């Protein structure tokens, strides 16, 4: 079931991305971008990242693409809607893309990723022998990530606290060991504040850049 869903979403993602590259009309590119980003949100849900998937749907598919379509409608006049370029440039771009794809696929396939998973999801009995590595968060299969992400953005890591053996919760004996001590500074409060101020500055800057120009009138008035 999971493999079938992954195959469907991956086909939509890759096919739409390739269609974005191939198509020459700018409006079709925007619509294929909608398809590709929405299917990527499906992949996020398959990876148990429900909050990230919902954010992808809301911000990317809801916001960015509406913004792009507004840009397309505001700038697409008839002779400039599809700007062709020469076959030599297409050949250069295609060669660059194929070469980079070969490099990245070779590097992905060259690494044995199963060792990474075995190191993280260690069997219970082999934890006693060697020092336990830093664990991934254990509730990944639950997929209930919106509350830990929200608390982490407020500066508190509830995912680390939840996997910490707390005495009064009577944790099962072999549950988790070897966590670093939870400090209140391990969250993401400062990046959250920085990015909120950044969004404010970006919105002010975008509104300033895209404002309506009345420069000739004002210069005429300004000249004595």
């Amino acid at each position, binding site marked *: 079931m999971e493999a079938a869903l992954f195959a469907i979403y991956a086909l939509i993602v890759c096919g739409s991305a390739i269609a974005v590259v191939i198509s020459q009309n700018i409006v079709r590119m925007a619509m294929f971008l909608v398809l590709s980003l929405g299917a990527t949100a499906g992949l996020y849900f398959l990876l148990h990242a429900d909050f990230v998937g919902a954010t992808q749907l809301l911000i990317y598919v809801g916001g960015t693409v509406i913004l792009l379509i507004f*840009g397309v409608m505001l700038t697409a006049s008839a002779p400039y809607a599809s700007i062709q370029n020469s076959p030599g440039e297409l050949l250069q771009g295609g060669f660059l893309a194929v070469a980079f794809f070969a490099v990245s696929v070779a590097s992905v396939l060259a690494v044995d990723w199963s060792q990474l998973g075995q190191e993280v999801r260690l069997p219970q009995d082999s934890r006693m022998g060697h020092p336990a590595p830093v664990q991934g968060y254990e509730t990944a299969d639950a997929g209930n990530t919106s509350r830990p992400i929200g608390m982490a953005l407020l500066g508190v890591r509830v995912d680390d606290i939840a996997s910490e053996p707390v005495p009064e919760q009577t944790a099962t004996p072999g549950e988790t060991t070897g966590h670093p001590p939870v400090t209140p500074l391990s969250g993401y409060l400062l990046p959250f504040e920085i990015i909120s101020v950044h*969004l404010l500055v970006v919105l002010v800057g975008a509104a300033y850049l895209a404002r309506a120009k009345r420069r000739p009138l004002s210069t005429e008035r300004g000249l004595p």
Partner: protein
Amino acid sequence: MILGVVPLTAYLLVASVLFVCGLACMATKRNGIGMLIGVELVLNGASLNLVAFSHYGSLGLDGQIAALFVIVLAAAEAAVALAIALNFYNNHLTIDVDRADELKH
């Protein structure tokens, strides 16, 4: 212990296809908004990588939060780049990036 039905390599390959399509889009499109769409594809591939490593690797929630920051920064970048494209279109009556060789005419 088996990781699951879908291996990590499959997600990495999908992210690689997204990244390369965005790169080709940025390299071959002469439309300014087409280049912006290419940047969106590249950032989307990067955040898919982050979420995949957050699920399979030892990143935990950090990968998902980094993916959230990537999404928010991509939205901000799209707003500013579209404002620049509109401004350029107001000045030059085209969004061909090959003609963007002067700041103001």
